[in-house]
Structures are given as structure tokens and as C-alpha cells.
């Protein structure tokens, strides 16, 4: 007699499905299409009822319970997607489908993690409990749902009138930013909450009286958070990649050129090259020439050239080289393009001409010759202070991997409209070429985000070893904001209280200069101006103990189709993953080891 175990039920379910498919296929093979459909329908209905009954009957079994959740989620997603389609919101159906797919990927990933970490003891046991905690904690679940929702809904929120390349850049920027911010907040909350809860609610009494060291306890917690982050980043990465493909294939025929730009300039991994002066242009000679002129004009001032003066002369020479007068021309050499030539794809020359006279029609007329090749249209009409990307065939690159770009300013010097044209501003003249694919680029960017999260996880755990949850989480948030905007804060602090010629000073010279400035303003009675100095010093002291996330921010690179190199990923690994996380972990271990776990209980 058959014992009604859940395994029997599952086996029979498989048998019903297999029999239905087999019979329907046989009928279809016999040409009985109607019967095949009817068989499929009846068998499908029977299988649905069977699975529903079984899921209800054996809902106490953990495996069946989880399968039930997946089935319920799938049915709900199908109903919602069907509703969207029936209401004419195709993008809504795509978003629901995406959310479902990411949800399923999350469930599968979670099962894999449980199976992997569930085998080990010690720190892995702590990690598993940490993950279960995160999954079942409602706040964490809200964050996870928000993450999946944002990634899925973003494509449908973009302006369809925009060019695909702009939409794609916007989607990549916002989705990666959202993933990074949401996971950072989740990581800080989880890490701080987990340890401080254990200490306040005294779970440590029962955990740390078992054969596990306090360092291993922290390591386990950290492992749980980073594995959780790995899963969520993987799911988010799959979601982003999937939606990129969906967006790409949703373009119409009339968007061919736009889609081509997306493929060549956004969904790639490119590197950029800045121009150098051509070989026949001797900067040293020009420097000496200019110095001689200055000595003549300002006798005695340039007899002994200070580093500041030398830098000034050099900057002026570079600016002159990057500026083309009316009717004039300049040469710019881009080298190291051998890889681009081998790849065979066209390279992009990106220009942002800035007309000194600011023409009324904002048009700048240029002529360009690249390695002696002229464009089909020799007169280029570019917009003043706007980027323009030109495609240069790879076979124009010479055997040394160089492109010599000659640019002529076609403005008539006798009737000047635009005056000089300059490329002296940042990124005004660059060559981009492809070195890899979008998928690998996205992967490296997610790895960097993960390394940032790994640091934040350790920071949260360390803070929570000695601070209560609200204080620890706020301190972590402060450091997170400081790390994310460290470049901005650094520049702001410098402009808040600036020492003269600061860029040319060493750290010590700058400190002495600041202290001198503080004393001088104090003696002059400018109290507020004087107080800016200590404020700046406190700010800089804080920033010294904060890693620079700005250095390892892959989002703008991915959105612009620029390569997130393995070199950058490795640097992030060493800096964030090893150095900052390691130091933080050691501090956390020391604090945990020396603190008393119990509170006053007399």
C-alpha cells in the first residue's frame, strides 16, 4: 500500500505532467490537434489541483513550504503581468516579469548558500544564522523588495522620447546607484543590528560560551553579511543585464543609428587616451624660450625659477598648445592604440570645442585630418561647449598604434566669429576605443561595489561591538557619507579655508601655512575667518580615517561605456577589501575581546 508521504505526492505530480505531455504529443503527432489541446488542458488542470492540494497537505515540510512560496509568487506575478497586459501596460508586465525572475534567482541563490554554508560549523554557523536573520527581519526584507522593485521598474520610468543611448545611460546610472545605496544602508543596518542585538538581548551568553572565539564570531557575522550582499548583487546584476538586453531589443527600426551608438559607446568597455604633443614639438625648448621672454619682461623675478613659477609656465604652454587661433591649426598625438587596431572596431574621437568669442549661432567650424585621412565632410560644424563624438575607422591607426589628429580652426581671422577654439578643459579632447564587453565591465563594477559593502559590513560590526545600535548605525552612516563624498568634502574644505598657492605645497608646508593663517586672522580680530582653519583641520582629520569611495566609483564608468579595469578592481580589493576592512576587523576583534559581554546583574 502506498504511504502518503510528500515524496510520493511529488513523484505522482511528475508522472501526471509527463503523462500529459506524452499523450498530448502523441495526439499531436497523429494530427488530432483538438484532442491534444484538450488533453493538455485537462492534464494541466489536474496537475494544478494536485500541486495545490499537495502544497496545502504537506505545508509543514520545510521543502514543500518553500516550494509553496515559489508557486504562490509565480502565480501572483503571472496574474499581475496578465493584468498589466490587459490594461495595455506592456512595460508594467515586463517589470513584473523582471521582478519575478530576480525573485526566483534570489530564492535559488539562497538555497545554494544554505546548502553551502549549512555544512560548516563555527563561523559558518554564525554566518548562516546571520543570513536567516536578514531574510526574516522585516526591515531587511523591505530593503530587498525595494531593490528588486527599483531595478525592475526603472526602465519603464524612463522618457521614451529620449534617445536610447541617453535612456540606457540613465538606467545604468540610476540602477547601479540605487543598488549601491540600498545595499550600503542595508549592510550598515544589518551589521549594527546583528551585533548590538546579540549584546543587548544577550544571545552572546549562549553563543560565546560555546567553543567559538570572539574573533570567529565577528568573522561569522561579517561572512553572513558579505555572502548576503553577494547574493543580492548577483540578483541585481542579472536584473540590470536582463533589462539592458530587453531595452536594447525593444528599439525600433528607425532607431538603428541610435542603437548602434548604444552598442559602440555605452554597452562596451572602452578606455580613453588623452592627446600628447607630437614628437617634433619640443616642450623643453618652448619652456626655455618662454622663460627667456619672461626674464626680459620682468627683470630679476625669474632669475631663480621657483617650482610654482615653473608650473605656471608649463600650464600656460599646455593651454597654448590646446588652443587654436582663428585660421590656425594644431597637432595632437594619440598613442597606445595598438589594441584598438587589433580589435578592428572603430575608435571614437570625442571633442568639446570651446569658442573664446562665444558665437551667436554657437557653431564652431573646424577641419580635421587624421593620419593624413580626411573625413567625408571636410568641414566639421560642431556646437560650442558641447560634446561630439566622431567615429574613426580602426584601419586609420598606424602600425605604431598612433593617431595624429590635425585640427584647423576655419574661422576667418579677418572677420572672426568664434575667435580661438580651445580644448583646454577637462575631457575636451579624447579618443575612446573598445577593450572589452559590457557584461564583464558590469561584473567588475559589481565586484567593486561588493568590496565597498564588505568594508561597510566590518565597520558596522566593529561599531556595534562598543556602541548601541542607534549610535553605531549613525556613526557608520556618517562615515559612509564621508567616504562617498570624500572628494567633494576635500575640495570644499580647501576652498573653505584656503592657503595661497596650496596646490604646490607639501602636507607639512600646508599645515604650517594653515596655522600661520589662523594666528594671523586671530590677531587681526577676524574670529570667524580664523575659526575656519580648525574647522577645516577637523574635517580633514575625519577624512583621513575614511576610505575614498570616490576613487572606486564604477557607476559613471559603466554608464559612459568606459572600462572598469581589473587594475582598478584589484586596487579596490587591496585598499577596501584588505587594508580598510582588515584594520577595521582587527579593531573590532580587539574591542570584542576586551569588552565584558555581560552587564551588571547583581
Amino acid at each position: 500500500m502506498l504511504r502518503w508521504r510528500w515524496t510520493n505526492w511529488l513523484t505522482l505530480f511528475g508522472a501526471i505532467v509527463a503523462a500529459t505531455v506524452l499523450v498530448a504529443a502523441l495526439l499531436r503527432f497523429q494530427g488530432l490537434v483538438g484532442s491534444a489541446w484538450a488533453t493538455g488542458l485537462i492534464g494541466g488542470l489536474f496537475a494544478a489541483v494536485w500541486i495545490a492540494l499537495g502544497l496545502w497537505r504537506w505545508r509543514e515540510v520545510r521543502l514543500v513550504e518553500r516550494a509553496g512560496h515559489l508557486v504562490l509568487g509565480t502565480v501572483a506575478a503571472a496574474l499581475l503581468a496578465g493584468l498589466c497586459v490587459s490594461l495595455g501596460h506592456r512595460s508594467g508586465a515586463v517589470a513584473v516579469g523582471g521582478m519575478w525572475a530576480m525573485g526566483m534567482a534570489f530564492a535559488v541563490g539562497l538555497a545554494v548558500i544554505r546548502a553551502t554554508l549549512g555544512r560548516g560549523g563555527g563561523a559558518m554557523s554564525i554566518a548562516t544564522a546571520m543570513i536567516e536573520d536578514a531574510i526574516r527581519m522585516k526591515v531587511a526584507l523591505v530593503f530587498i523588495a525595494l531593490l528588486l522593485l527599483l531595478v525592475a521598474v526603472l526602465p519603464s520610468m524612463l522618457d521614451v522620447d529620449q534617445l536610447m543611448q541617453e535612456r540606457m545611460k540613465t538606467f545604468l546610472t540610476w540602477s547601479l546607484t540605487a543598488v549601491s545605496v540600498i545595499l550600503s544602508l542595508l549592510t550598515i543596518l544589518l551589521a549594527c543590528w546583528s551585533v548590538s542585538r546579540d549584546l543587548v538581548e544577550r544571545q552572546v551568553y549562549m553563543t560565546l560560551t560555546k567553543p567559538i572565539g570572539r574573533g570567529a564570531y565577528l568573522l561569522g557575522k561579517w561572512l553572513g553579511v558579505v555572502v548576503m550582499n553577494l547574493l543580492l548583487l548577483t540578483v541585481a546584476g542579472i536584473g540590470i543585464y536582463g533589462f539592458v538586453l530587453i531595452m536594447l531589443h525593444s528599439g525600433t527600426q528607425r532607431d538603428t543609428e541610435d542603437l548602434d551608438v548604444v552598442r559602440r559607446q555605452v554597452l562596451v568597455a572602452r578606455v580613453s587616451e588623452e592627446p600628447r604633443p607630437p614628437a617634433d614639438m619640443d616642450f623643453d625648448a618652448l619652456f626655455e624660450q618662454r622663460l627667456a621672454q619672461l626674464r626680459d619682461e620682468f627683470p630679476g623675478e625669474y632669475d631663480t625659477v621657483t617650482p610654482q613659477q615653473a608650473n605656471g609656465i608649463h600650464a600656460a604652454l599646455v593651454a597654448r598648445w590646446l588652443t587654436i587661433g582663428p585660421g590656425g591649426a594644431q597637432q595632437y598625438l594619440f598613442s597606445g592604440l595598438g589594441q584598438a587596431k587589433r580589435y578592428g572596431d572603430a575608435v571614437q574621437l570625442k571633442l568639446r570645442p570651446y569658442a573664446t568669442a562665444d558665437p551667436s549661432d554657437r557653431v564652431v567650424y573646424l577641419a580635421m585630418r587624421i593620419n593624413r585621412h580626411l573625413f567625408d565632410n571636410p568641414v566639421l560644424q560642431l556646437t560650442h561647449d558641447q560634446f561630439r563624438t566622431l567615429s574613426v575607422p580602426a584601419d586609420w591607426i598606424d602600425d605604431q598604434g598612433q593617431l595624429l589628429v590635425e585640427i584647423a580652426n576655419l574661422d576667418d581671422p579677418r572677420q572672426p566669429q568664434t575667435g580661438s577654439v580651445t580644448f583646454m578643459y577637462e575631457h575636451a579632447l579624447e579618443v575612446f576605443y573598445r577593450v572589452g564587453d559590457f557584461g564583464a565591465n558590469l561584473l567588475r563594477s559589481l565586484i567593486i561595489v561588493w568590496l565597498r559593502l564588505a568594508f561597510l559590513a566590518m565597520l558596522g560590526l566593529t561599531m556595534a561591538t562598543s556602541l548601541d545600535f542607534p549610535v553605531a548605525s549613525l556613526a557608520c552612516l556618517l562615515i559612509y557619507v564621508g567616504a562617498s563624498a570624500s572628494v567633494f568634502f576635500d575640495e570644499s574644505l580647501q576652498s573653505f579655508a584656503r592657503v595661497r598657492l596650496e596646490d604646490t605645497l607639501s602636507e607639512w608646508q600646508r599645515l604650517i601655512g594653515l596655522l600661520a593663517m589662523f594666528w594671523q586672522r586671530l590677531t587681526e580680530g577676524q574670529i570667524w575667518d580664523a575659526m575656519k582653519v580648525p574647522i577645516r583641520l577637523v574635517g580633514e582629520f575625519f577624512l583621513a580615517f575614511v576610505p575614498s569611495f570616490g576613487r572606486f566609483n564604477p557607476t559613471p564608468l559603466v554608464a559612459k561605456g568606459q572600462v572598469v579595469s581589473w587594475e582598478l578592481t584589484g586596487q579596490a580589493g587591496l585598499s577596501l577589501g584588505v587594508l580598510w576592512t582588515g584594520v577595521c576587523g582587527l579593531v573590532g576583534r580587539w574591542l570584542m575581546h576586551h569588552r565584558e559581554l555581560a552587564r551588571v546583574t547583581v
Partner: protein
Amino acid sequence: MLGTAEVSKLASADGSASAADGAVIRCAGLTKVFRDFWMRNRVRAVDGLDLEVRRGEVYGLLGPNGSGKSTTIKMILGLLHPTAGRVALLGKRPHDVATKRLVGYLPEESYLYRFLNARETLDYYGRLFHLDPRSRARRIDMLLEMVGLDAVQRRPVGEYSKGMQRRIGLAQALINDPQVLILDEPTTGLDPIGTRQIKDLIVQLAQRGKTVLLCSHLLADVEDVCDRISIMFGGKIRLEGRVDDLLVQQDMTSLEVQKLDDQTIHQIEQLLAQSGRHIERVDRPRQRLESLFLEIVHRAQVEGAATSGATAGGPVAQFLIDEQRGAHLPDGVDAAKVIEQLVADRPIQRPAAAPSRQGSTGQDDAMLEKLTRRAEDKGVDRNRVAVREPTSAEKVDRSVIDRLTGDSCDAQADRRSDRKE
């Protein structure tokens, strides 16, 4: 799992001899002062405490609230750092991770992860001991059955009552089959069944060579199970010694027998008068409320009444018995049945060779047998006859006993025939 040999090896690894010489826990001049933010002494919780718990004994730490019991335990476990003095657990410092493989700890409350269910909770703690999955699953099954939570093992422990949480707390303390069990207020929040079960369990574990440090302010619990006790107050031990030495009134004897009529009592009084003694008090013993409660619950269970909470609990987890059976239990004794008997309020049927923790001898058993035989013949419930104080066989006046029990019937018959004559 480490056994006694491993414990000794572990203890001798750092040259310390305290575990090897029988002292499992040793505190010397232990002091704990809690200070405030300004480092001013706020509370002197433990004050120069000297303590030694020997292998295989059940040691009770008694004291009112705030006497420093829990603080002492927390220092022994490394949860608090002593202000002064030294602590050694199995000859090692409290922070030693390897030592903790041999220790089970039940804190004053069960601090569990509320989101985990009972099985996951035990699995979590089992994994911290690096138990292999198969052995872990086996132990979890047995422990859940033992503490009566096998029917509700899939519910998150956050939904458990306090008593159920205590039970799962007890189960986690036993998952590693510990050599040293430290129990802080173990019966707090438990129903009488659970309380009884824990006390019986402690006795059984001690019989198997485990060391138990019991901290409680419930005097009855400590009295029932402890070999030695110390009474703390103000962070100091005020009194220490063996329970028997401290509690037994050496100059008094009490007997419990089937109901006696006034005439028999008078006869006894006359008999005692011959040796210059007299009866101090005559009363009728009452059934203990605990026994009555257990009987009612047992009856309800037999009738199949449903409950959403913990059941009465099952036999002692086999792994707690298996490895020590040969050393501590005579053949033919099923330890699992012992606890069932206790829960069912039946006396333990000790085999002749089984050593008694109360120190009764073979002669005591023979005397008990003799005392009860006649009563049994007359349809008397054997369970109602018990000797309260272990008494040396040599001190018993057998003629008196014979008259009062079996042989007294013949004697009464003789006296009746004498009166007729």
C-alpha cells in the same frame, strides 16, 4: 566527544592540575566590582570568593537575589572579567575556546534567536560544537523529544512560552553532551513537570560522572539534587558543606508507615518509654502538591487531551546515556525508563547492584523490603511506604519494626487471644 581522559589531557596541557586533581571549577579570591563611568566603585558583586567544584558532584550555589551567584557564574564562563582573583574552568582560563567544548550552560533566561525554530536553534548550537550533520540530527531529535518540544519544533522560538523557551535552552546546554553543566536558575518559568524533569536529569547526569554547578534561590530544587552547597550573601560564601551534613538532624528519626490507630501509637509510646524516649509529633503526611499535579497531567495525557504547548517530555536523550552506560549503570537498567517512572510519580525500581545517591546500603533495601512485604499482602499501596532518612541497619530495633508491620498482625492476634483467655 571528549571524555574524562580528554578532560584530564586538556587540563594538563598548560601545566594546571586543577582538573586532573578533581577540581573542575576553581575560584580563588574572586572579586568583581562594577564601576560607573567615572570609575567609582558602584557595586561589589563578588568579594574574595573561594570555590571548588569537584568532578562528578552537583554543587549548589544558593543565595538571595543580588548575592552574586550569577556574576560568579559569568566570571567562570568568561562573560565577565574578574576585578581580582583567579578562575579556572577545567584547569584553563575561562576564555579558552577548547575548554568550552566540554561545557554546557543554561543562563538565567533562554536568550534565543526568536526567528529560528526549535530545530534550527539546536542545529545552530550543534554546529558551533562542530558536530557532524548525522550526529547533530540524531541528538536534536532526542533532545526535542526529551524536553517535549518535538511536536512544536517548526514553530519559531519567539512564539514559545517562557517555559518552552527554558526547555529549548536546556536542550541547547546538553547538545554537546557536556562534562560540566552550569545551570543558572534552571527551573525558573518551568511548570512542575519541567522542574521535576530537570531535577531528575541533574541527578542522572551526576550519576554518569558529569559535574553540575547549579545556581538557584529555590531552596527545594537545590536540596533535592545537590551534593554540596554554598550559601552566598553580599558576594561572599557564608556557609559551605555537604547537604546531608548541613540538613540532617542527627538526633532525630522519623518513620512513615500505614495509618496507625491510637492504640498502636500508645503501644509505640510505651515501647519508646522503656528506652527513655518519647514521640515528639504524630501527624498524617499529606500528598505533595507536586505529585498531585503530575498525576492530573499524566491522566490527561493518557486520555489523549490535546495541547499546543510542550508535552511532558520524553526519555533522557540516548546520547547522554550511551557513552557512560557501562561505567555508571548496571546491566539491565534502562535509564530512559527511570525518568518516565519519576514523571509518573512512581518510585525508581533500583536493582540490587545499583548504587544509591542517598547512600542506602543493601541492608537498607532488605529492611525496606521487609517493612513493605506484609503491607503489600494486605493490599496496601507500596508507594505510600518510604523511609525518609537513610538509617543505618544496626540502629534499627527489629522487634519493634516487626511488630509494627507484618509481624504486628500476629502479635495483635496473640494479644486478642490473651484478652479472651
